[in-house]
């Protein structure tokens, strides 16, 4: 498969979406097979793209122009003054994203066949999932910022539709609304950023903008502002501080959706965007620092919130936010290699964790971890795959998470405060992961009804778990040059994705030992506090109730935003609505009418209703006009 046909990748699921949206009730099994088969084809094509890509990557310097650039003119106003091309662009970042998106999407779709069985709107679910996949594939293959924005909004819409899948539930409807509006605020920034870049560069083409920026075409301050606006979009989509509030609520959607959209793919769009535009960020280091510190704050804050969350999916959601923070830290440090690597491994183990939690919820209809426990006896497959995923998340050697987190720590090696914060956060990650696993699967069952009800999920759901567990176990090894060569690439991931020059993977023994120690220490703390009946943890809660309350209430961000909306936004709405009613309408318009009415009331004595009076008035007019005519002529 050549690079020109890469547009087929989004086109296939898009076509499936149209078919499912219109005709799904008419198809056998509501057309779920269509979505799954289509996705499988996409996976095959993505692999073909990867191999083709490696072909001409092997021949030395990678050349984005020529065969790779593919454009179809969509809009052209005044001979190129304002031109938007539907162009695709494939490079190493794209290839990684293509593989991640298509593989995870396929796994999730297979899993959903079991998970969503018997749901109303079953066909619509697969249609929406296809729509999402299409948008996401378009997003990662876009060679043009406008096309990227197009896809960016489309994934937002898909996310809205899927979070609100159970729209009869008030909470789901509210969550969908919150997600859409919050990301939309970020998108405002993204659009402004894109337009600002266009304003100076005169093009939407990403590579041309990068060239323009590297050639010093932008004013430094101007570019800083533009890139910060652009980053706003990434903050919204990737649920970074301060726009992180929507992601935990987004767990109202069906669990496979959470796995695909809110863990593995859509939320990393922000990371992808910054990685794609990193050469421009490199021109203005202030903007890159903003990326770094945003990521750092988010990573730490989300990890602490994950410590106390009680909903199995919310814990995972905070973990996602936190891990995304890690990726932004890596980008802020100028290492797309580490960020994309972490994105790659994270996608697999986080999807695994979500699907595993889905399996639990499917079996017990319960997602409060306080109500679970002891499930390992009932759901062995789920438990052990979940444990693999958790260890990978905690960063235990040799699972995938270890390698990528190590890379990020390595990138932060020279910046002590950042390094320390990251290390602490990594420890926290291990702690809350352990807590989650222990409370859910081990110890004594706390809710016997749920426990009795539990059973292992059908094979169609466990199969994806196994595949993802395997990937979560081995995905980290691509970092080795040997593995890379075995797969047909010239080297490891460091030679594939890089900012300025290929990176060689440094396995720093001391650093790795330290990281491992942190992870194991975190797991140890977790075991100590939550093993068995988790008495110690209950007691620990009493030490600092204010802190606990702060964490449980998510640093009061939701309350803050809610009151902002209630008092500021809606307040402004009320003020203007009252202004419009009282001042513009009643004073300006009705007031005008009333003034006329008042004069009418005062002057109505002139209207005697007697014709002779009117005739006299007419006569007066005639006489006056005659006088005027006589004396002016």
């Amino acid at each position: 498969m050549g690079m020109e046909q890469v547009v087929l990748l989004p086109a296939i699921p898009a076509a499936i979406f149209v078919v499912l949206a219109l005709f799904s009730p008419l198809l056998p099994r509501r057309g779920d097979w269509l979505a799954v088969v289509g996705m499988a084809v996409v996976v095959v094509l993505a692999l073909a793209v990867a191999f083709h890509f490696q072909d001409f990557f092997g021949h030395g310097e990678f050349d984005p122009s020529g065969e790779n650039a593919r454009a179809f003119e969509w809009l052209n106003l005044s001979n190129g003054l304002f031109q938007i091309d539907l162009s695709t662009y494939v490079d190493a970042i794209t290839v990684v994203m293509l593989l991640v998106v298509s593989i995870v999407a396929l796994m999730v779709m297979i899993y959903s066949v079991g998970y969503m069985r018997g749901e109303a709107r079953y066909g619509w679910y697969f249609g929406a999932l296809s729509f999402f996949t299409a948008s996401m594939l378009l997003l990662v293959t876009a060679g043009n910022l406008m096309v990227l924005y197009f896809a960016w909004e489309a994934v937002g819409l898909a996310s809205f539709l899927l979070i609100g899948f159970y729209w009869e539930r008030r909470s789901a409807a509210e969550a969908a609304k919150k997600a859409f509006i919050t990301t939309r605020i970020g998108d405002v920034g993204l659009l402004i950023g894109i337009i600002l870049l266009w304003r100076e560069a005169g093009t939407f083409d990403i590579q041309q903008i990068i060239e323009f920026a590297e050639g010093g075409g932008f004013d430094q301050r101007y570019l800083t502002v533009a890139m910060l606006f652009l980053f706003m979009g990434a903050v919204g989509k990737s649920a970074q501080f301060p726009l992180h509030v929507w992601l935990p609520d987004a767990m109202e959607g069906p669990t496979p959706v959470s796995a695909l959209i809110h863990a593995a793919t859509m939320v990393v769009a922000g990371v992808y965007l910054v990685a794609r535009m990193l050469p421009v960020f490199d021109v203005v280091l202030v903007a890159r620092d903003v990326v770094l510190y945003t990521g750092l704050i988010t990573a730490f804050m989300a990890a602490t919130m994950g410590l106390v969350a009680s909903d199995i999916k919310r814990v995972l959601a905070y973990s996602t936010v936190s891990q995304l923070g890690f990726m932004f830290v890596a980008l802020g440090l100028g290492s797309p290699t580490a960020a994309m690597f972490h994105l790659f491994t994270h996608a697999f183990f986080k999807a695994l964790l979500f699907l595993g939690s889905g399996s639990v919820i499917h079996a017990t209809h319960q997602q409060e971890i306080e109500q679970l426990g002891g499930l390992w006896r009932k759901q062995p497959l789920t438990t052990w795959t979940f444990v693999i995923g958790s260890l990978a998340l905690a960063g235990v050697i040799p699972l995938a998470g270890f390698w990528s987190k190590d890379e990020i720590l390595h990138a932060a090696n020279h910046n002590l405060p950042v390094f320390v914060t990251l290390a602490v956060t990594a420890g926290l990650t291990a702690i809350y992961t352990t807590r989650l696993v222990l409370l859910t699967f081990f110890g004594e069952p706390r809710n016997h009804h749920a426990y009795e009800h539990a059973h292992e999920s059908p094979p169609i759901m466990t199969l994806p778990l196994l595949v993802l567990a395997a990937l979560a176990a081995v995905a980290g090894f691509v970092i080795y040059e040997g593995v890379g060569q075995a797969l047909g690439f010239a080297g490891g991931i460091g030679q594939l994705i890089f900012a300025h020059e290929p990176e060689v993977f440094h396995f720093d023994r001391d650093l790795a030992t330290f990281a491992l120690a942190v992870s194991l220490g975190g797991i140890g703390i977790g075991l100590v506090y939550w093993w068995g009946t988790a008495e110690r943890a209950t007691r620990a809660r009493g030490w600092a109730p204010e802190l606990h309350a702060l964490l449980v209430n998510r640093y009061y961000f939701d309350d803050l935003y809610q009151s902002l909306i209630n008092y500021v936004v809606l307040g402004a709405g009320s003020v203007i609505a009252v202004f419009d009613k009282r001042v513009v309408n009643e004073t300006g318009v009705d007031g005008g009418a009333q003034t006329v009415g008042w004069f009418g009331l005062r002057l109505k004595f002139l209207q005697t209703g007697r014709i002779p009076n009117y005739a006299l008035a007419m006569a007066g007019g005639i006489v006056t006009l005659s006088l005027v005519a006589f004396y002016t002529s």
Partner: protein
Amino acid sequence: MLRRLPLPAQIDRTITLGGLLASVVAAPYIVVLGVLFATGELSAPEFVFWLNAGLVVGGALAAVLLRHIVHAALGLVGASLGVAGIFLLLASEFLALVQVLVYGGGVTILLLFGLMMTRATDGPIVTDGAQKPFAFGAGIVLAGLFVGAMLDAEWDALNVTVVGFRELGIRLYRDFGIPFEVASLVLLVALIGAITIARREPAPGEDDSK
């Protein structure tokens, strides 16, 4: 008020007043005109003009000033006859004829019918409204203005030539054929309209066609 003269009973104030007016105002006027004509101060057309002008103005004054409606209507007849004379003087016999026929005949008769049907002679006769002083002022100013304007302007007047019936007919029926037809339509519509307006409204339930 004049004391009632010892005259036959059927001769009432109308005749008394008319006779008085004729003897006090009209007679001296005619006498003066006659003397001027006889002495050659006035040519024949001028004599006729002044005679008619007197009739017109006198009639008009009577029409707008007299308090009794019948007197006013008679004033209108007089004025109309005067206007007809003026038309003759302006060499358009046809118009003079029409004026006499339509006004002296039709219009006045119609007005008198109207008078009879509204029984306007009954009761106290207060014919002038409250805005009479304003009306007087407006009339004076307008008259002054118009007369001033007429005298102010300079006309390159030609001689009067007689317009024969023949030429008038050709002009009226050939060049103004369509307006003529339209005018007839207007008359018809006015006729129907007058009937519709003036007819007694059928009481509810009464058959409309009767």
